């Protein structure tokens, strides 16, 4: 249901004539919902801006939120939900910031006793509902992009290559090793081997919950790549249940050294070093 142009202009008039008390009451209502997490001055500024945007939209003859005349209002709503989402407010708290406008308007209207005003109010209420839904949509979109960003960051964070000893670097793998992460791990490891000139690399899989053929293949490829660069790889952190699963699956690690713990792997590398007289 959209507003008629008459209704829009009547509301533009109402909003401009009662601008001050309306914005104030609206801010109060929002503040009650947010329980003091935003200052009243801040809220007051937001509601005033929003109210002006509503008023301009109605003035320009916006009968629907999607119409051209409401572009500025949509931008304002979008900004509101972006800020709320980033500040960690819930979707409900964000939508209420818009819904409260209806309550404030009704209070300002006073007692609704004639049919025209009532019809007007219902139309207006429908418009605000759509505005709130729009806010909700933007909120979800912002949260989704935040989550995507975090997943990206996690990908980066969870694959450090650390120097363990003179000439020994280690990659402690944690969590699920999918193709994207395996690629990041391989690149990091090979780059670190070049940067440090290390002859040994330890790949620790203590934190990998399940080693299936795909994980094994990624590890094998990484080992082969490291060997091509002249570095020896040791796989450590093979727990008993993982060992049995690897055997049952039929995965062969060939002549790649494998150890139960990172400590064993380091000890092995140091003894190899001594033997080589390094």
């Amino acid at each position, binding site marked *: 249901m959209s507003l008629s142009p008459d209704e829009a202009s009547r509301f533009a008039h109402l909003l401009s004539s009662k601008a001050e008390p309306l914005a104030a009451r609206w801010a109060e209502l929002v503040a009650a919902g947010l329980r003091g997490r935003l200052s009243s001055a801040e809220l007051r500024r937001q509601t005033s801006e929003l109210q002006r945007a509503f008023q301009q939209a109605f003035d320009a003859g916006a009968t629907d939120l999607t119409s051209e005349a409401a572009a500025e209002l949509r931008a304002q709503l979008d900004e509101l939900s972006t800020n709320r989402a980033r500040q960690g407010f819930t979707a409900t708290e964000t939508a209420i910031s818009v819904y409260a406008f209806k309550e404030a308007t009704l209070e300002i209207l006073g007692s609704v006793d004639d049919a025209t005003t009532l019809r007007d109010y219902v139309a207006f209420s429908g418009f605000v509902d759509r505005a709130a839904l729009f806010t909700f949509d933007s909120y979800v979109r912002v949260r989704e992009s935040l989550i995507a960003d975090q997943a990206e960051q996690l990908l980066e964070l969870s694959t450090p290559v650390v120097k363990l000893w003179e000439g020994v670097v280690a990659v402690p793998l944690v969590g*699920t090793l999918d193709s994207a992460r395996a690629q990041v791990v391989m690149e990091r490891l090979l780059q670190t081997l070049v940067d440090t000139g290390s002859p040994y690399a330890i790949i620790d899989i203590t934190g990998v919950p399940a080693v*299936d*053929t795909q994980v094994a293949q990624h590890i094998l490829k990484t080992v082969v790549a490291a060997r091509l660069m002249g570095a020896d790889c040791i796989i450590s952190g093979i727990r008993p249940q993982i060992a049995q699963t690897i055997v*049952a*699956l039929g*995965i062969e690690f060939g002549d790649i050294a494998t150890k139960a713990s990172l400590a064993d792997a380091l000890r092995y590398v140091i003894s190899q070093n001594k033997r080589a007289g390094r």
Partner: protein
Amino acid sequence: MNDESQRLPVDTDRDVVRVRQLVRTVAVAVKLSLVDQTKIVTAASELARNTLVYGGGGEVEVTRVHNERRAGIRIVFADQGPGIVDLDLALTDGYTTGGGLGLGLSGARRLVDEFDIDTEAGKGTTITIVKWCR
């Protein structure tokens, strides 16, 4: 008597991870040993990835099952993909058409207690596996 089963779609790599997590949760709930948990999770991971890569996506159903003596977990992987033309060849260690190690299907069979495969060229593939508590 069977408990209610849980279904998951398999359409992306993330879904494979979800399948793995669900299977692990159920495996813990039926009190599989740590080794058997790892085995069933790994088998599920292989088969779910096959459903995704070769079957073009599908669905996984995880159910807690009981017989007279013991509890277990049953997982069904179903896709509407091209099916497996030569099943014996597909179950041969080291045979692959997708550039993997060629151990997923044959290895998964070795990891579980019951393995049933129903496939027809052009009609899709349904694989049912069961792991019982020892």
